[in-house]
Structures are given as structure tokens and as C-alpha cells.
């Protein structure tokens, strides 16, 4: 029997890692919804959720129970299978990104060297792009299957917005990849750990463009036109109720966490704690410090997302398209040219 002749330790180790990462992200997403409401409350000078548990800390649990207890409604004119497939796809696509994010340096456990990354693949960052482009289907299928013209219009908006901003995002990223000469996220982070500077120093414009595109990809304000309630009632998830609606709302928060993790890894050193020499402590402790550092960076990015959401009003649709095609893409191309010239001049 050669069928089962592979390293079972590796399989078990990866399964545990996947479970930890997936449930960890779900847990963080749960508390991001709470964080969002608290941040909104602080910015608007009101107390925010403070009834369930101490400081309102049990609020996400109460919200979750409320969503699950609601009646499931599938409209009679809806396409039943696709109506269910929509939120499932949205959730799957947003969770799949976590496979290539390096969460920390290697740890040693039971004599095995364990990498804190589910898959270190040659094409790391392209994989993220592929998954992001799959995320559009969740919205499109859900919007179309609802058989509601507002949902359909909203899902078309979401898809065209995602495609437009993916371009600028890719172009901004190419400039970074030219300097790192690798697509593997692990290699990119390691370069920043060993080198003196984080990539943000080399690619400030590229990061700005990437950040704006990430806001648009996550459908966050000021780019939340797919959910523009004053024009489209409630957007693509208008016909959804109960946990299927919860999945759509939740997927947005997971997207936010994953894009924060990607931005932290690509431009802000990933699990690198600045001014700290990791080789002075035991490898396991260094790895734990790294995981903690990355989580703090992610939380800071999420706070930035929320800060922007509760400060800036929503764009008009033509403004959004103009920004994407006539400002971001030319700027990204300019950034690409400058980077290429600097690399040629060996600076």
C-alpha cells in the first residue's frame, strides 16, 4: 500500500493549524463587530453597546443568538440553491485567504519544526488575488438569486467596483514585488525581519494605493455603494434573513481582518517586532512574540478602517469609478515606472 504513505505528522499539524486560524479569525471577527460599534460610539460621542455583560462584552454573543433565532425566509421566486450558495461562497472565499499568511516564525514542538503558516507556496500573493476575485461570486450569485432588482443592481455595482479596484491593487503590488523579487509572503516577511527597513519605506505611494483598493475590495465606507441603503434599500443581501444574512455581514469583517493581515505582512514587516533582536530569546518565545506583534498590527489596521468608515461620507458611483480608473491606475503606473527606474539605477 503506497496510497497512504505520507507524513501523517504534517497532516495533523496542518489540520490543527487550519482549525486554529479559522476559528481564531471567526472569533476576532465576532469581536470586530463589537469593536466597530464601540468605535462608532466613541467617534459620535455616545456610550455604544453597554448592556450585555461587563462593558457590553457579551454583545456579539447576543447578536449571534438573535441572528440564529430569526426565521429563515427563502423568497418563492428566488433560485433556491443559488440563494443558499451565495452567502456560503462569500464566507468560504474570505476565509480561504488565511492559508498563505505567515503568522509567525517557526516553532519547535515534540522535536518537530512547525511553520506557523498553512501553505508557503511559490505564488503566495497571486493566490490571494485569485481568492479575492472568487469573493465577487458570492455577492453576484446572492444578488441575482434573490430575484429582486435592487439586489441585482447592487451586486452588479459590487462586482464592477471589485474588478476596477483589483486592477489598481495589482499594479500597486507589482511595484512592491519588483523590489522583493519574490511572491512568497513568507520570503517577503523574512526579508523585512532581516533587513533594516520595512517595505513601507520603499513603497509609500504603493501602500497608499493598496490601502485604498483594499477599502474598496472590502466594500467599506467610503466605497460601500453596494450597500447604499438610500438608493438600493439594503443592497445585495436585502432578501436575506437569519444566519445567511449573518454570513454576508460576517464575511465583510473577515475580509477586513485578512486584508489587514496582508497589508501588515507586505508593507509593515508582518510578525517583525521593531528594535528587537529575535535571536536573543528561545525560538518558541520569539515566535509567540511575533504572533502577538502581527495581531497588534492587524488590530491597528482594523481600527484605521473603522475610523475612516465613521469619518468620511460615501462617494457617488461616478466619483468612485473616476477615482479608480482615472486617478489610482495612472498613479500606480507612475509608481511602477519610478520603482523600475530606481531599480535600474541600482539605488
Amino acid at each position, binding site marked *: 500500500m503506497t496510497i497512504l504513505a505520507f507524513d501523517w505528522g504534517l497532516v495533523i499539524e496542518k489540520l490543527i493549524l487550519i482549525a486554529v486560524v479559522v476559528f481564531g479569525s471567526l472569533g476576532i471577527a465576532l469581536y470586530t463587530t463589537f469593536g466597530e460599534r464601540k468605535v462608532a460610539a466613541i467617534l459620535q460621542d455616545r456610550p455604544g453597546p453597554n448592556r450585555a455583560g461587563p462593558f457590553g462584552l457579551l454583545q456579539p454573543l447576543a447578536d449571534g443568538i438573535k441572528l440564529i433565532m430569526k426565521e429563515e425566509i427563502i423568497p418563492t421566486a428566488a433560485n433556491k440553491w443559488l440563494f443558499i450558495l451565495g452567502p456560503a461562497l462569500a464566507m468560504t472565499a474570505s476565509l480561504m485567504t488565511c492559508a498563505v499568511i505567515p503568522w509567525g516564525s517557526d516553532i519547535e514542538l515534540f522535536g518537530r519544526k512547525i511553520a506557523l503558516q498553512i501553505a508557503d507556496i511559490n505564488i503566495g500573493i497571486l493566490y490571494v*488575488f485569485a481568492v479575492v476575485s472568487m469573493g465577487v461570486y458570492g455577492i453576484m450569485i446572492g444578488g441575482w438569486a434573490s430575484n429582486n432588482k435592487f439586489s441585482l443592481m447592487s451586486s452588479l455595482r459590487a462586482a464592477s467596483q471589485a474588478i476596477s479596484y483589483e486592477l489598481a491593487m495589482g499594479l500597486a503590488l507589482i511595484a512592491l514585488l519588483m523590489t522583493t523579487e519574490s511572491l512568497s509572503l513568507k520570503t517577503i516577511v523574512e526579508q523585512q525581519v532581516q533587513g533594516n527597513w520595512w517595505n513601507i519605506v520603499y513603497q509609500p505611494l504603493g501602500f497608499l494605493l493598496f490601502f485604498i483598493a483594499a477599502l474598496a475590495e472590502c466594500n467599506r465606507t467610503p466605497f460601500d455603494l453596494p450597500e447604499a441603503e438610500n438608493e438600493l434599500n439594503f443592497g445585495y443581501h436585502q432578501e436575506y434573513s437569519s444566519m445567511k444574512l449573518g454570513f454576508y455581514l460576517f464575511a465583510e469583517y473577515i475580509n477586513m481582518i485578512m486584508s489587514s493581515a496582508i497589508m501588515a505582512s507586505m508593507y509593515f514587516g508582518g510578525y517583525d517586532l521593531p528594535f528587537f533582536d529575535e535571536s536573543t530569546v528561545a525560538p518558541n518565545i520569539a515566535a509567540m512574540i511575533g504572533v502577538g506583534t502581527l495581531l497588534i498590527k492587524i488590530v491597528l489596521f482594523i481600527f484605521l478602517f473603522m475610523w475612516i468608515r465613521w469619518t468620511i461620507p460615501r462617494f457617488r458611483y461616478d466619483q468612485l469609478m473616476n477615482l479608480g480608473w482615472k486617478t489610482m491606475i495612472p498613479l500606480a503606473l507612475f509608481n511602477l515606472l519610478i520603482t523600475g527606474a530606481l531599480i535600474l539605477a541600482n539605488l
Partner: protein
Amino acid sequence: MSTVDILFYLLSAFAIVSATMVLISKNPIHSVLWLILVFFAISGHYILLNAQFLAIVNIIVYAGAIMVLFLFVIMLMNIKKDAEPQKQLLVKLTGVVAAGSLLTLLIAVVKQTTQIQDKQVLLKEGSIGLIHPLGQALFTDYVIPFEISSVLFLSAMVGAVIIGKK
């Protein structure tokens, strides 16, 4: 049977079933979704060949971008199931004969090709599908065809803009 063999047969079955579903689905939206699954199965085959770059580009370009455009068009056309034109029996029969002969021809050609006889596919190894060797090949040996095809894309883009302006 090694793991790779098992994966190969699973992916092949997956691809063929999905491709059949593309043809027999009455609803055009369902056809598009099955076609996306076909692209995924083909990407799986590329990964078995260790052509990671090709696999992911297949997903980004075909499953991610082109199929979204297909969905756009079909969703906006609002095709009804019963409004689909029914072809005559004779036309259907001609189609079957034509497609069947093409299939026979293709199989015959593949079987006759001497270059691929008694050759084993490199499974799980070989680095030509990874980014570095592929980039090297594209920008040294095949630089002229590569550049010419990019000019072709540029002209298509200019054409699209001109049509859009009218």
C-alpha cells in the same frame, strides 16, 4: 496507485462531470457556474504538474475575470427558461455528427503524434511551471512572441475604448 494517481482520476472525473453539466443545464447561469468548476478542475491538473503559476493565472483570468463578465451579460439579458429557442431534430442531429467527428479526429491525432508516445508526464516535479523559470523563458527565448502578443492586447484595448466612445 499513488496519491497523485488518485488525485488525477478524481480531478478528471470532476472536470468531465462539470463540463457535461455545462451542456445539459437549462439555465444559462447554472451553465456559467459549472464552467467555473471546470476551470478549477483544470487548475488542479496544473498543480499536479507543479505548474503553480499557470494554475493560479487560470483561476484569476478565466474563473475570476472572464466568467464574471459572462455572468454580467447573462444576468442583465434576463434569459427565461421557456423563451430559449428549440432547434429542429435535424439540426441537433447534424450537430452531434459534426462534434462527434471532431472528437474522433482529435483522438486520432493525439494517438498518432510520435512526440508524445511513450513519454511520461512529469508529475509533482519539474520546475518549469514555477515563476522564476517561466519568467526566464518568457523574457529570453520567447521575448518576441511575448511582446507581439502584448501589442495585440493593447490594440484590442484601444479598439474597445473606441467602440465605447461611439
